[in-house]
């Protein structure tokens, strides 16, 4: 067994959790807005998933080993890719079921895993706050194999009873089978990684369920900061920490400038 780290930050923990969910040989879709997600992909490739490929903005599987250098910019690394990739390539790859996993950081998420990256407020045409919008979040929650969500600050402003705008579709009341019945190809949200805990979803009801608590976090901390009732398992384990090797790679090789800490 690799050594568990005892010296890690929560952003490093979340990178590790996203990375570990990527299996070897999978095809990962990585957006431009979520650098932490990119760090996780690079970590997975350096550890258990050396044969993963990923679509990095405008090219397919460029050779990137770190983030935050001019030499790692999409324009430069695209010259080492398998192929340039345009938006139609991305659409057809995903609609044909080739895209395995995507991660995203929304402004709100509700008990069914619906995510909102569009706006805050009751009136969608006169919102309190207008965000830049969802880009491809809508699409990957519907058409990618699965989606992982991460939340740097677990609060009731993020974990809400009902999102103000469904940018990305979660599960239906009625559970996972309801997606299949309605012809939605993707399996939708799989895990939610916050600074406090890991959450999953219940297959029968589609509702969010607590999976594990991070070290030092109490159940009450999570419940007090969540705007709806989480399903609770009989036993609540502690979240597996990152390994020493993972933390070293993240901190010293992949993201020495700490860009993953944005919004943490």
């Amino acid at each position, binding site marked *: 067994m690799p050594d568990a780290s005892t010296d890690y930050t929560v952003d490093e923990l979340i990178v590790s959790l996203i990375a570990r969910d990527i299996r070897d040989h999978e095809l990962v879709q990585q957006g431009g807005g979520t650098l932490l997600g990119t760090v996780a992909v690079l970590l997975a490739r350096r550890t258990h998933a050396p044969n993963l490929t990923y679509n990095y903005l405008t090219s397919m599987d460029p050779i990137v080993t770190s983030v935050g250098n001019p030499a790692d910019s999409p324009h430069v690394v695209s010259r080492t890719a398998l192929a340039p990739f345009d938006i139609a390539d991305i659409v057809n790859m995903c*609609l044909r079921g080739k895209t395995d996993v995507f991660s995203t950081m929304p402004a709100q998420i509700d008990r069914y895993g619906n995510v909102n990256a569009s706006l805050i407020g009751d009136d969608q045409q006169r*919102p309190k706050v*207008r*965000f*830049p*919008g*969802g880009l*491809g979040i809508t699409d990957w929650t519907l058409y990618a194999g699965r989606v992982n969500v991460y939340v740097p600050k677990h609060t009731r402003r993020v974990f809400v009873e009902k999102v103000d705008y469904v940018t990305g579709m979660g599960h239906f009341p009625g559970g996972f089978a309801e997606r299949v019945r309605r*012809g939605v190809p993707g399996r939708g949200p799989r895990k939610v990684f916050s600074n406090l805990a890991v959450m999953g979803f219940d297959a029968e009801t589609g509702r969010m369920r607590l999976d594990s608590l991070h070290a030092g976090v109490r159940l009450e901390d999570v419940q007090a900061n969540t705007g709806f009732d989480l399903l609770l398992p009989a036993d609540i384990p502690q979240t597996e920490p990152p390994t020493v090797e993972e933390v070293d790679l993240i901190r010293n090789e992949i993201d020495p400038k700490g860009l993953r800490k944005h919004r943490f």
Partner: protein
Amino acid sequence: MRDKRTTIAEAVQLVEDGSTLGIASPAVQPEALISMAAVREIARQGKRDLTVISAMAELESDLLAGAGCLRAIQFWACRFFDLGTPPNIRRMMQAGEIIAREESEFSFTLGVLAGGMGVEFIPLHGYFNDHLPHHPEWRTFPSPFDGKQLLAVTAVVPDVALIHVPRADKFGNAQFGETNRHNTAARFLAPHMVRAAKRVILTTEEIIDNAEIRKTPEETGILYHDVDAVVHAPGGAHPHGVVGYYEPDEAHIKRYHAAAQDAERFREYLRAYVHAPADPGAYRALVDAE
């Protein structure tokens, strides 16, 4: 093929109040195919009630918003580089003054593909989200195969599309140069948006001979029969960059972002950069002198 050269003032007469305006493709720095020359002229002529269709609504849509030209924006993102929602758009949407027709990358792309291909719509399965009520132009219908609900993503057919290119001949045959090679989002969207539109205004860094076009046909991204007006407008993408011609003007972009934070200061910006310069040449002289 006909000679379609004209002035920007003439070309923009093609844009009628209340019409839809297609922005060919998003800026992916340091490259853009965005005709800021045409955008500024539309603001200058005070067009009203336009709907902008722009994959990533940014400075160009924000300028039109702040100038009071817009009724709605159709987009998959509206963001100002790395600085969040564009300031005028944010303020005006939050005041309910501009309609947000947000959609996703896939629906936007399929709509533009349908428009560029000349088909009525493209059917998309399993599309559930809150974009739907904001797109009265879409329809849901049962699949003629299995009866499951499909979304008809209506072909995007802008009344007028705008594009700025490095090189074009007087007929409107245009080549994207280096932009075509790196900006793969532009590579798909720009030609399709141009094809999809009823009318196209093309501004260009250089007017070249038709014989030049024929020396590198594989570089051609737009053909004459899809273009209605050709305007020679060097610097016409500013403050965006055009690869091989000029870099993005980061200082101007910052100045714009600061000015757009409130309506009064933005009126100043418009006076200085949209209304004062008589034409794209005068605008260029102005920003070159800064």
